[in-house]
């Protein structure tokens, strides 16, 4: 819609076109633009000068007033000696004056005078009080001070003051705080306001501090519950509060403790409360309390209550992660890569279809597998054309991962003692297209007598499952000292068998990876430590970038220092199931039978 181009010689007028509309000045909403402070006008300045002068006068009078006060005292002294009648007379005249001034009829005056006469002994101050009472009846409180001062003026014959007194007092009432000190006189109003504000702030701060102090006192007061209180069934919220309180007390025990109670009593109380709140049995809770510091313990328990996110592993034999993610997104699955540490894992946030029944799942493009189950296989680091043993394979997640990393070359022996569960291994292997597998059902401890010389051995040992409480909450209650003992013994035997199965002379391998889904040191560090003593193996770094270091000392136990090369994973730290991974390298096929026997006899 611009101006029409005129290519014949006609000159084109400059400026805006006839139809162009000029935009008006912008308008802004109120408050956006800051108003500049205007200079005071001449009149305003005059008024300000007047105000200042008035104030100065006022101050002068105030100083005078103080002087008169001192005079008044002298008068009072004389008065007490004087005849009271005289005084009352004078008062009468005074009051009459006043009533005239105020143009109010004082009906009670005569009556009051009688009263005065009754109290013949009363001194000046008494008279004043009575007068005050009378004034209140009239409800003219404001004038009260001025009236009393009027009297004083009478005595002193200061006529001047009498005239201005009332007004002065009123003003004084208004600026009570401001005029309290003479130093304020020279201050500008803004400075006064500032001073006032500061005072106010100080007061507020003081109050706040006091309140804080009160609050903290209240908070830290935790009284140890009595037996009856403990016996009666309370609701869970009370118990939760008590857990918090006890942990607070234990965190600053010296200051907050009850002097008559020992630390162990507090610990017992805490343990019992935790057992009730999270429904663990006493034994397991005690074990957990030995492993974790108190604040971490709570986090662990909380994390164990909620399920870990569902994760899947891409079957690299059949597809790539990107293609799989695309296919699943098309089916309405909300997913993300697990993390930077793996290139084949996906975490599923939500899904419109069951993840265990999509055509992709049935075609073997992925397998449902916990994030923690990736770790031992990554630590094992299988290579192509190797002979690898998975001693406790069911349901075949880790075995199939190994086979996928070997790209279906070499051989994977998947063993599991349970014949029912081995069916899942076979099913998964066929679904995922793994062709290099031998699936058998030996007892892991007897495997060395059947077949040896594996390049790598993975032992994902059966355990109490204290790391996967969220998956199987029955662990909380059904584990006991005996169970752990039993697990521990079995694990030691299995680990020794696993080491015996491995071939130390293998060019690439001689690697044994030991893992459990438990977090108890009895099932982890202790077992590995035992194997270190019995066989010619050494711990080597797992190759996993994250995870907490394994324990080298736990309560009375002192483990081999190299156990810090093992890795622990916790639900509250790494958002995966509790897990333990140790990577061992076998150096010779010698079995330290004698050495072990000697140690046992020594012990």
């Amino acid at each position, binding site marked *: 819609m611009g101006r029409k181009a005129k290519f014949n010689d006609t000159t084109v007028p400059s400026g805006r076109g006839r139809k162009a509309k000029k935009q008006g000045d912008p308008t802004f909403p109120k408050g956006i633009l800051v108003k500049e402070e205007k200079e005071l006008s001449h009149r305003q300045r005059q008024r300000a000068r007047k105000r200042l002068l008035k104030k100065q006068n006022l101050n002068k009078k105030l100083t005078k007033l103080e002087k008169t006060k001192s005079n008044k005292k002298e008068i009072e002294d004389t008065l007490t000696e004087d005849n009271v009648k005289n005084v009352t007379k004078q008062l009468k005249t005074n009051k009459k004056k006043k009533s005239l001034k105020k143009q109010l009829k004082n009906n009670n005056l005569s009556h009051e005078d009688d009263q005065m006469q009754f109290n013949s002994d009363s001194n000046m101050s008494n008279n004043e009080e009575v007068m005050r009472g009378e004034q209140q009846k009239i409800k003219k409180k404001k004038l009260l001070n001025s009236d009393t001062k009027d009297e004083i003026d009478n005595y002193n014959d200061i006529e001047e003051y009498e005239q201005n007194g009332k007004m002065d007092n009123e003003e004084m009432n208004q600026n009570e705080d401001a005029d309290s000190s003479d130093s304020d006189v020279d201050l500008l109003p803004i400075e006064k306001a500032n001073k006032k504000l500061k005072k106010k702030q100080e007061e507020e701060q003081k109050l706040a501090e006091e309140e804080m102090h009160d609050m903290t006192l209240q908070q830290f007061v935790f009284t140890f519950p009595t037996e009856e209180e403990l016996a009666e069934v309370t609701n869970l919220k009370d118990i939760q509060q008590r857990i918090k309180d006890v942990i607070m007390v234990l965190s600053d025990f010296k200051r907050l403790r009850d002097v008559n109670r020992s630390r162990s009593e507090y610990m017992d109380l805490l343990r019992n409360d935790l057992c009730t709140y999270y429904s663990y049995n006493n034994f397991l809770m005690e074990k957990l309390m030995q492993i974790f510091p108190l604040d971490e313990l709570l986090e662990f328990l909380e994390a164990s209550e909620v399920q870990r996110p569902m994760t899947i592993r891409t079957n690299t034999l059949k597809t790539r992660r990107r293609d799989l993610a695309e*296919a699943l997104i098309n089916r309405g699955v909300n997913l993300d890569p697990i993390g930077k540490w793996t290139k084949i894992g996906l975490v599923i946030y939500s899904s419109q279809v069951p993840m*265990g*029944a999509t*055509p*992709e799942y*049935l*075609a*073997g*493009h992925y397998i449902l597998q916990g994030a923690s189950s990736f770790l031992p296989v990554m630590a094992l680091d299988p290579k192509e054309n190797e*002979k690898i043993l998975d001693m406790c394979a069911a349901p075949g997640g880790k075995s199939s991962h190994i086979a996928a990393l070997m790209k279906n*070359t070499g*051989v994977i*022996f998947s063993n599991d003692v349970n*014949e029912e569960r*081995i*069916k*899942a*291994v*076979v*099913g998964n*292997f*066929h*679904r995922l*297209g793994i*062709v*290099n*597998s*031998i*699936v*058998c*059902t*030996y007892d892991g401890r007897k495997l060395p007598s*059947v*077949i040896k010389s594996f390049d790598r051995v993975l032992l994902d040992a059966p355990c109490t499952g204290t790391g996967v409480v969220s998956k199987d909450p029955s662990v909380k209650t059904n584990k006991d000292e005996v169970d752990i003992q039993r697990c521990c013994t079995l694990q030691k035997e299995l680990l020794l068998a696993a080491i015996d199965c491995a071939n130390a002379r293998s060019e690439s391998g001689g690697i044994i990876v030991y893992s459990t889904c438990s977090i108890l040191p009895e099932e982890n560090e202790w077992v590995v430590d035992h194997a270190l003593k019995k066989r010619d193996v050494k711990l080597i770094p797992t190759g996993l970038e994250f995870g907490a270091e394994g324990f080298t000392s736990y309560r009375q136990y002192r483990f081999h220092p190299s156990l810090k090369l093992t890795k622990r994973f916790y639900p509250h730290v790494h958002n995966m199931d509790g897990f333990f991974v140790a990577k061992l390298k076998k150096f010779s096929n010698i079995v330290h039978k004698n050495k072990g026997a000697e140690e046992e006899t020594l012990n």
Partner: protein
Amino acid sequence: MKRLTEEKTKLVLEKLTKYIGTNVKLLLDRPDGVYCFRERKGRVYYVSEKILSLASMVNPDKLTSIGTCFGKFTKSGKFRLHITALYHLAPYVQHKIWVKPSAEQQFLYGHHISKSGLSRITENTPQYQGVVIFSTNNIPLGFGVTAKSTMDCKYADPMATICFHQADIGEYIRSEDSLI
């Protein structure tokens, strides 16, 4: 773990030929080593000789599976192909059927494929020919036998069955226990 008798070998190969024709040769002579069929408890396994030699160390009672299970001999002496063989058959198959995404789920529940669910079919497929069913994005879903030839399919009724269901990958869930 024993070698198949000649009769049984013949039965197995006949069955495989129905699906992959002359490509059976490729299945036996592979570049990555010699593969062979072995029978155990009526099941036929297809396995590399290398793995077989290692498996010989294992007590047959304790051995559950080696390599890939192709199928089993029925009581009446016929050979039945299992869905587990799909991984090896799908690449060599000569006649294919692609199903629409809407019909995919139906097939995975064990139903036949009707004309309405048919997306594509290999040219010149005769009637009663063994085929492998694919989804539209080329995921093998199972085996079947054509009920109509390609020519007949053109003029078939929308509800008419095109392909009879034989095995599908839904069986991994439906009949996990009976697969092996």
